[in-house]
């Protein structure tokens, strides 16, 4: 049971999440990320270091070190809801794979307790790392943001080769259910062509049945100020619902995938 003592750094645990994977879920947000997406709605997730953030006049510390057992204590509280809804634990971030042992042991802790697991991740890690978590993971919710290597790098700080390669490997290994999620960001990837390109790629992945289009939102805007940073995209507006519908049709026109707007 050593894995229950594995330590890691989180910045939040959110209960009653109903839009990230099946059912009613508890999301554990791990701190630290490999990317620096300009639209990121959780800027406090990016740095691994513990930070201070001021919101609504109150300064709070973002980031705390906890053991798997401590996280599981909260996760266990909503067990009746998981049982009724098919929900469970979801890891999010940041990029969970930045803390590979902790991520693995959190998933393992949940599975050992009979709780369903999911992970939101960009898959931006060495394959050996990903391979370690797969035995404990029921559902991989993988972000693919763009098919163009250069544009990906300009907007997120990293090219996309590793992630696309990992997506293929995850799909091929057949150890977990894989779904593709696309944050739809105006000026970055919101043309039908760009979305279609991602959809076509997703369609080639064996076993992938779902693609989610997640409309950009400004939920994180105030946090930048709270961290003493400037929001890089102050003028950006969320896509109109009609536009999202158009993109959904674009996906459906070129693939067999089930396409859903929002989580």
């Amino acid at each position, binding site marked *: 049971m050593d894995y229950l003592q594995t330590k890691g750094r989180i910045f939040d645990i959110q209960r*009653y999440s109903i*839009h*990230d994977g099946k*059912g*009613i879920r508890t999301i554990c947000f791990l701190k630290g990320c490999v990317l620096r997406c300009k639209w990121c709605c959780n800027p406090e997730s990016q740095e691994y270091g513990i930070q201070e953030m001021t919101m609504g006049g109150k300064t709070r510390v973002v980031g705390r070190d906890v053991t798997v057992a401590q996280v599981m204590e909260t996760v266990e509280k*909503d067990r009746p809801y998981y049982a009724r809804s098919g929900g469970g634990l979801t890891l999010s971030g940041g990029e969970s794979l930045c803390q590979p042992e902790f991520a693995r042991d959190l998933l393992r802790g949940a599975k050992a307790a009979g709780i369903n697991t999911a992970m939101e991740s960009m898959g931006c890690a060495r394959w050996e790392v990903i391979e370690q978590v797969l035995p404990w993971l029921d559902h991989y919710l993988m972000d693919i943001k763009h098919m163009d290597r250069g544009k990906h790098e300009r907007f997120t700080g990293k090219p996309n080769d590793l992630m696309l390669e990992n997506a293929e490997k995850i799909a091929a290994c057949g150890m977990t259910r894989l779904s593709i999620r696309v944050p739809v960001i105006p000026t970055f990837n919101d043309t039908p062509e760009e979305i279609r390109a991602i959809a076509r790629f997703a369609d080639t992945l064996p076993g992938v049945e779902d693609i989610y289009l997640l*409309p950009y939102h400004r*939920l994180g805007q105030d946090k930048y100020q709270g961290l003493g940073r400037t929001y890089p995209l102050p003028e950006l507006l969320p896509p109109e619902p009609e536009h999202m519908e158009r993109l959904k049709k674009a996906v459906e026109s070129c693939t067999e995938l089930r396409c859903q707007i*929002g989580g």
Partner: protein
Amino acid sequence: MAKYYTQEIARTERIPRLVAHLYARMPEIESARARLLTESYKATEDKPIVMRRALAFAHILDNIPIIIREGELVVGSSTMAPRGCQTYPEFSYKWLEAEFETVATRSADPFYISDRTKAQLREANAYWEGRTTSELATSLMAEEARKAIDHNIFTPGNYFYNGVGHVTVQYEKVLAVGYEGIVAQVQEELKKCDPGDEDYCSRTQFLKAVILSCQAVIRYASRYADLAEQEAAACSDPVRRQEFAQIAANCRRVPARGASSFYEACQSFWFVQQLLQLESSGHSISPGRFDQYMYPYYKKDLQEGRLTREQAQELLDCLWVKLNDLNKCRDAASAEGFAGYSLFQNLIVGGQDRDGCDVTNDLSFMCITASKHVFLPQPSLSIRVWNKTPHELLIKAADLTRTGIGLPAYYNDEVIIPSLLSRGLTLEDAREYNIIGCVEPQKAGKTEGWHDAAFFNMCRPLELVFSNGWDKGEKIGLETGRVEDMGTFEEFYDAYKKQMEYNISLLVNADNAIDAAHAARCPLPFLSCMVDDCIRRGKTVQEGGAVYNFTGPQGFGIANMADSLYAIKKLVFEEKKVTLAQYRRALAMNYGQGFDAVSAGEIVTQILRQMAEKGVSVEESQVAGMIQAVMSAQLPEQEKKEYEELLALIEEVPKFGNDIEEVDLFARDVAYTYTRPLLRYRNPRGGQFQAGLYPVSANVPLGAQTGATPDGRLAHTPVADGVSPSAGKDVNGPTAAANSVARLDHGIASNGTLFNQKFHPTALEGQQGLENFVALIRSYFDQKGSHMQFNVVDRKTLLEAQAHPEKYAHLVVRVAGYSALFTTLSKSLQDDIIRRTEQGMG
């Protein structure tokens, strides 16, 4: 083939027309009933009371004006004006006369009243001086109980001023045999009476009163048959003429005889529902398991091809509209406590039969559809949930919830059935329970439950602990000692329990006095013929004729008391950061947050009393100035700072509603200070007292009579709602709040508990939203919660939440792909969501 017909049946164009007609004008007070009642009473002073009641009921039914409203298929209106109300001076009338000039302009539930009606009511009311149930109840009550009421410890207002209602009768019996059948049964009973029997007089008088009442109801239906025939003759539209002819035929047959079709069953049901109200003025006369007793008529007609589903749905919709035609004018204070012209006619679908099998049927679904079609507050639609409830029924219910109508309420068989067993019901009866009014379970046709006996404010006894039994310069409670001398938390808690127990005994006294007054002055023979075992026992429900008898007064403020007592335990006794004396002063000074006029008035009253004791008199003209001075008095900065520090300390103490086991189990214990002592008491009908834990909307007006509490709640602000956490104190989301609430003992509160959760419609979006919502209810019920209802919020609430985030910390909204707590969002995002709500979500 699917087991149930779950398709949404379309609404006919008739329904919006009926609704528009009903709501075209402000409801109006009429005088016909009061005049006829008084006329009859004057002529029957030599008769026994039960006979006088029956004769008066008959006189009213034979003479009250009747009307068929535009487009109606089911007829029977107690007033000429839509949504009008009659008055019931035999229970009370003075409050209405006092409010004649303001009743049309008050904020909660206004009623129009003409000068002519005012004059007629004054004339009729003059007879009732000294003859009402409320006057008799007052004279029966102990002095201490009256004082406790004056000091707002509890309020038995509902039954003190009004009829009792709060019953579900044997509708199925009327549908099956009609009132002719009941009369025949009563005549058989009469034959068994021997003039030598010790109860011959009371028994025969009661039985004869039943016969008179039933015959009057049959004549009343005939008046409607005549009217429909006249309307048919005068009607030029052939379709409507045919409808009138059908209405006439229905009213000729029912409720005199058993219903031979679903349509007749609907009409028969309606006369029962309407006339119960006209006899007694009580609210919460609840149709109960309507989908069960109506189903045989529906099924037969459908099978024999005499009825389509669409026709059945239209008839249901018509009944749903009619349930909103009944109305009642309450006094201004009660109107605030029951805001929304609500009559709480609770109609429940689903659940199990006496043998424990699920009995969901097509009508269960159609009832939900009717609420969606009509979209009005009545009936108070409820749904029974147990392990074998079909999933599709819950999905259908959730689909209604997300419209924002606040219906249905969900009830847990797995808690309620054992709870009723513990109160002496048989297993078969418990399985057949339905809900009365808000949340009160009972067995229909066998129970006089007195379910809304009083509201007891659990915060007030804590104030009495701090004041050593004094309130507004008067000693009203026990002397439990000075708080300065209390060395342990146990000592303090014990003082609270003593104040609770003492005031509970006064509550019982007040309720029993009112109970006795109803038995003496307003026995109800018509209602009693549809409740077992009145006919066999030969007495009304008011005299103990029902099989099961209860009195159910509600406690509220659990969350405030749990948080208050826990804060005292932690801050005073464990961490020793503040003394009880400091706490007392902080409460008296409203934590330095200033005094409103009410507090200032109370303070000045105390000063005046002290001055009077010393022989100093004050000119009346100076009082207003003194109140003004108190309100504008500035505290020294140092003192103000101390209170702010105390508030900050209180803020840090864990609160009920956040899934913290220690705090929640503490709250469970605090709830026992109300629920357990009550069980020791009995009522004059031979039944037991049982607690409910819910305030309807009384937590707002009664909170306005409550000083600051040790949980940081400021003076005169609302007290927590039902068993829900204090507004804004549950910050871990809906599952955490539900887990906390489920840690209370719901089974012991057998008169019902109420748990309200607030959601934005977007949280229930899509099929997945419905599935997760149903899972949330199921999971709360797995943990033995008893009741759950949902307030899917509208734009107004969101604006309010924006202005007062502290009250709405728990409001869940969905933003793009995320659910979030509304108050944590930025102003601009909040505005986005408000705009989205405006765009007709739900």
